[in-house]
């Protein structure tokens, strides 16, 4: 039976470049024809899976319920949520029935669904992102897939990111793949909603229609340029590609707004603004709103800082994590004469060792006992430091800020003398801290 061409045309206009997927889904879910009891839609992030499924179901006017696993905290939450959603779709006039039923297990859900769907001839239950469900039962996905076999009217549609027969425990399930968009498709999609060049109507030669037209023309070429330079390697999905484009758009068209370039001088503009495409700043997501972050940079002098001894403690912890205990004597014993052998094997005449080890700074930080940390701290401080509870308090503060971690199982006894600790911050941060308190970390690190 042919699918409804009008609907397909509408959907294709709404979601370009997905004709094949829309057509297969529409065929499989046709209201008048029998459908498979289970269906899997898969594809990576931002390829239109959920949106298309939802739009199609609404268009076909099949009763359905969409359950997003990301909103469900536990497996039980998912089940309760599913039942509630089905009830609201099928019997909205009778909320009491939903209120009185509990749904603590898959069995209950099945029984409830059987009762609910007795009168229905087709009902689609969509589980979005079910493979990412938190605290899921191991049997959750296989059980949901088979639920359509026992409940006649039910079609279960699973949306997952990558299908694997292992998670389904069954074969022969129809899969519909949503492939990632390629360059042409991405640009076509983005061209549907071009950003305007002028934020307010331009005062000069462009009337509104021409302005929109010109914007669209520049935008399409701009998107293509962004893809070829930056996004191809680092922002390949629709969302991040769009983010990068939007971030670069304003600085890119600034010369057009100011009037120094015309809209059709695209290639010249591209050359003039080439630095935008050479840097990687556009790829970095910033949590602070752009103009805000610059204002803050200016007043950053008065930053909140850790107390002096906390900084020293962090430096000591870093050294304890990244130096091996055997080298402590070389670096920290003050009485040894000044000609320290820095950088281990740098003596003349020795040939480089054959087996090359990964430098410690590239490995994960190693755990150290508390007494070693305190010993290094004493060696770092330029003046005698009495061992007061203040130091231990600061250590606790640093642990609660997760700058230092307790290694090993978190539940172990704090009073246990053998508890080990580990640094949890980057070398740049520690080196900057060290400079602030007058400790040059490079002098003490075994390899860098």
């Amino acid at each position: 039976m042919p699918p409804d061409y009008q609907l397909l045309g509408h959907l294709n206009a709404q979601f370009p470049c997905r004709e094949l997927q829309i057509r297969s889904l529409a065929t499989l879910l046709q209201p008048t024809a029998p459908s498979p009891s289970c269906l899997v839609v898969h594809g990576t992030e931002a390829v239109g899976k959920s949106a298309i499924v939802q739009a199609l179901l609404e268009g076909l006017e099949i009763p359905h319920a969409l359950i997003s696993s990301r909103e469900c905290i536990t497996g039980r939450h998912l089940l309760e949520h599913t039942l509630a959603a089905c009830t609201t779709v099928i019997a909205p006039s009778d909320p009491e029935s939903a209120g009185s039923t509990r749904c603590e297990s898959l069995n209950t859900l099945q029984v409830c669904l059987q009762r609910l769907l007795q009168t229905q001839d087709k009902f689609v239950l969509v589980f979005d992102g079910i493979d990412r469900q938190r605290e899921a039962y191991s049997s959750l996905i296989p059980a949901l897939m088979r639920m359509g076999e026992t409940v006649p009217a039910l079609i279960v549609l699973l949306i997952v990111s990558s299908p694997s027969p292992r998670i389904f425990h069954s074969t022969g399930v129809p899969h519909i793949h949503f492939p990632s968009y390629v360059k042409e498709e991405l640009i076509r999609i983005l061209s549907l909603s071009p950003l305007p060049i002028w934020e307010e109507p331009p005062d000069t030669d462009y009337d509104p229609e021409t302005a929109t037209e010109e914007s669209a023309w520049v935008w399409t070429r701009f998107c293509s340029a962004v893809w070829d330079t930056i996004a191809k390697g680092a922002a390949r999905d629709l969302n991040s590609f769009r983010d990068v484009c939007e971030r670069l758009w304003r600085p890119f068209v600034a010369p057009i707004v100011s009037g120094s370039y015309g809209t059709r001088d695209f290639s010249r503009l591209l050359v003039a603004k080439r630095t935008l495409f050479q840097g990687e700043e556009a790829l970095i997501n910033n949590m602070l709103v752009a103009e805000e972050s610059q204002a803050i940079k200016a007043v950053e002098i008065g930053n909140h800082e850790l107390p002096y001894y906390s900084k020293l403690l962090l430096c000591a912890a870093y050294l304890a994590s990244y130096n091996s205990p055997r080298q402590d004597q070389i670096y920290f014993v003050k009485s040894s004469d000044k000609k320290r052998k820095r950088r281990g094997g740098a003596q003349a005449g020795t040939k480089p060792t054959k087996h090359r080890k990964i430098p410690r700074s590239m490995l994960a930080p190693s755990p150290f006992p508390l007494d070693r940390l305190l010993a290094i701290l004493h060696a770092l401080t330029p003046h005698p430091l009495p061992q007061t509870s203040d130091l231990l308090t600061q250590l606790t503060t640093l642990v609660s800020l997760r700058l230092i971690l307790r290694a090993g199982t978190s539940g172990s006894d704090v009073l246990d003398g053998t508890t080990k600790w580990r640094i949890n911050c980057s070398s740049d941060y520690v080196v900057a801290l060290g400079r602030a308190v007058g400790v040059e970390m490079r002098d003490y690190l075994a390899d860098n």
Partner: protein
Amino acid sequence: MEHQKTYLYAPDSSRPTKRGRTEAPEWELQSSWKMREETCHRLWSEQQKRIQKVLDDANSDTLSDILDFLEKVEHQRQRSKIPCGFILAGSSVTTQTSFFNQLSEKVLASGKNSFASISSGEAPNLKGFLKLLIRRAIAKKDAFDGDDETITTKGRRLLDYDLGVLHEWVKEKEIQEVVVTFQDGEAFDASLLADVLELTHLWSNRIPFVVLIGLATSVENLHRRLPQSIVRVLQGRQFDIVQAEVLLERLYCCSMIDSEPSLCIGPRLGTAILERIRLHTQNPQDFVDELQYAYMTHFFSNGLSVFLSEDLEWGDWAREHVEALRNLPSFRRFAEEKVKYPPSHFSVRQLLDRDDLLFNWARDTVAKSHKTMHLMAEAAKVVHACRSLVGKSNLLLSDLFMEALSGQLHDASHVRELFLTIKRAPSDQLSRLISTLLPLVPDEASTLEQIQEKLDALEAENDSGHPLKSEHDVQNQTLRATVVARRVELSKLKASLSKADAEYTDILLQFHEWLEGYLSDLLIDPEDVLLSEITIYDRKAPHKLAFEPKPRHAIERALFAPHDYLNCDCCPVGTGPDSEGTLSFTQPPTSILYQLHLESGPLINVSDLFSAFRAIMDEEAEEKQILYLFQRALAELKYLGMVKSTRKKTDHIAKVSWRGL
């Protein structure tokens, strides 16, 4: 007891052998204790009020910024973004907590918002977090008393961690914003934080969430920990709450300088307190605690502090106090000084003979001493104001005041430098100086006003457009090099000064002279101030003991000299210089073993250790019993982290720590 990690120590009612005094002896300074206690409470509560006001006002700017942000955020909400405020609050937990409490009050005040503040310790996992979030946001407890984990709203039964509960409630009450606050953002598990942010993002189209995250270090640190997908949806703004050091300075100024404090913290203690807080904790609350402790110690330990009470009357209690007064070093110096001049013999004699006269004299002198301290604070403020006006603000007012208290401010090099700079000041700077100083020095206003008038008159005549210059300004001088007999001579030449400039220099010198006289009058050594023993408290030792305990040291000392703590009869009470550290079998076994381990090298042979231990123990004891004791003692040392087993050598243990770690 052995199977518990900690236990509650319940002392039996019998008093310990080392008796403390329980009742006040009648003849001693103790008799005024009641009065002193009252005075202490009264003075401290005044001080506390001032401090509390500063603490309350400290973050008003940031608070209003955040409230403003919350108000506007509704209109600026971008598609699929969570509005988010990063509050940089420093590492001190107390500051954070009090700040968030204030914030919560303000946010809830409008009645259209809901506020849920959660700290990391309360919510170990996502489920717990959401439960707490919903409970706090709704701020209603009775809705959760139902049977199990479900809540029924409008006929729908929802789990108590389902944000749908919150959704229903928001719809019903027409709440404009639900503010979710992570009090200590860094202390949260990064994955939990990411999960919660993801959920708020998903629900933000139904529930108007705003997220506030308290941070101790920087936004970058958080940025590194969160996954990119979360970072992408945050639309953040940064807020700073006032830094601990700034607040500390404000607290010090309000408690010591701005008001007329009845008890002054001396320079040594003051420096120690400020330094400890700056270097170690950065917690302004610590300052309040230490100040209160200073009040308590002073009034408790110093009987004469009773003279700080305002409504003091001559009574029986006073006799011993007056006698103690006569023994004060500052009084003695005063008396000796007076005796040198015959005319004042009589008055000194009277003070020494007549108690009631001395009593009245002391009350007046304490008041005078207060006045002196106040003027000294005023002088420190003048120096500070001058320094900041001539563009040097590297010294804090608290530092300057402490220098003044130690009697060193007047001769300090930076003050000399200040005078030189003032001598070169142009006229506009001088008039600014005078107008700043006028409100600071009410007693000297007339002199300053005269100078100001003259200056104004002179400036009115000056129509050159430039400020008048001082004769001592280096810019007026040029260096000229002349070659005389093959030698280069450098000579300074003064540019010709106009008549107005010369007149201005006169005025400037007048001001300079006044300032010099003013400062040298006020900045005297507080040790010379009569009865400064009563008005200044400057003892570091009690504070050290109370605020900087040394747990490790205490354990080591107890193990090293158990007799000091046990006070038993069995252990020999040594009376020589080398009485300490004598080993005897009556001491606790752990203590013996500890002392033995101190004497040995980094690797200890256990067998040798045991033979040394056996040699000390009671000869009559059984070998087996000694072995038990030895093993237990060794286990305890291991638990305390003094020794550990080693694989370097068989039958050896390694010494882990050194004394005083």
